[in-house]
């Protein structure tokens, strides 16, 4: 199969294979994961600081910040899932009361 590959591909594979093995061994290690997590923590901290600073600036100008919109969005999201839960409970209750739901029908 390898002999059917074009020359450039054979050259690529011969370089890629040892490189892949080394990089994958490194990338799969706990040390690498720790470095990644440190970078992630750093990135998160920088993002939080920048957002906090821009939020303060916008609030000084009496303007809503991105964080406010996200907070509102989360509250709406929580409300939406609460409404959905109530709808589910109601559906179940009516299913139990009138026995017309799928479970009741299958039980008959």
């Amino acid at each position: 199969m390898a002999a059917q590959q074009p020359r450039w591909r054979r050259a690529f594979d011969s370089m890629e294979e040892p490189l892949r093995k080394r990089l994958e061994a490194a990338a799969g290690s706990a040390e690498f994961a720790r470095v990644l997590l440190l970078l992630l923590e750093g990135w998160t901290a920088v993002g939080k600081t920048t957002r906090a600073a821009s939020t303060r600036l916008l609030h000084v100008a009496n303007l809503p910040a991105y964080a406010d919109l996200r907070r509102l969005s989360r509250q709406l999201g929580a409300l939406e899932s609460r409404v959905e839960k109530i709808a589910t409970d109601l559906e179940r209750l009516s299913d139990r009361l009138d026995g017309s739901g799928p479970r009741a029908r299958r039980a008959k």
Partner: protein
Amino acid sequence: MTERASEVDLLTNLRREVERNALRARNGLRYLAGGRFVRTGATPRDLVWHHGKTELWRYRSERRTRRPPLLAYLGLVARSYVFDLFPGNSFVAKLLANGFDVFLLDWGVPDEAEASNTIATYSLELLPRAVEAALDAAEESEITLLGYCMGGCLTLASMGAGGPLPARSLILMATPTDFSKMGDFFEPMRNGSFDPETAIDETGNVPASLVRGSFRVRKPTSDLVVYANLWQNLWNDAYMEGFQAMNEWVNDQVPFPGAAFREFVSEWLIGNGLVNHRLHVGGRKVDLGRIRVPVLCLIAEQDDIVPLAAAEPLPGLLTGADVQTVRLPAGHINLATGRQADRVTIPSIIDFLDRHATPRAA
């Protein structure tokens, strides 16, 4: 004579390369311009139930000759269209062709509304409701559940916690159970030095880019190989179809709902609850011994996402079930797609289902 033959070979090769380069140019431009070579999730289907962003689809079929129906689903971070990748490479289409009534459960793309969803939301609320809706649509009383990867974990959580699932049988594909064997990459998460809040963004979820990055970073040269393969096969329309569909799916993760992620890290990764028999979902203890229906465990031997050692203990944990284990020389993704799926996975599933299925009354 030999000289003449080599001249003819040279000319043939030259002509082939010229033709291929013309096709490469055409396909390359089409690809760069965002052209579609194939449509993913193309098998005709109908939405039979939805709740929030969760959707239950039933695939159309003229010949549903086998029962019970089959409900397939993935975990929380991948898109469900891998089950119906593209015409000619569709897991769903092959099951339909064999007379099964196939349903697909799609958890949707979570946003702020799903940030507080826990594992129990999916395994003890949404999954049982989807099963009910599927049974209602199929007018059946039992179902076969097919959970792929973390979808299998949701099945185990649901049935192990005594969730009301009228399952005739279970199919668990590439399902991780021993999280202490997930590889060194997860060590900082397992030893508690990773704060899950670091990964959660302002929507309350783990962003899709981070989910995607966590897969890609472990395969540092995969992009290079993908582009080398692409260049080599750019002339081939059939290859381009598969490439586009697969490349799209591989890079199409969805956010991990924040509350479920926190629970996943503490209970599954750190606590290794399935193996240690200490897992609780929605306040209920998960006891895999409660699972008493026939189970087919499909384990991929070359899985780079769920290592063999992490998936292997599952049959041993299902102490009350009649378990059939099939180990395949496949990777995580080609367990459900491509030639490996055609040759081994699907025949194994059909064989298993046949032994636990009944023909549908005419």
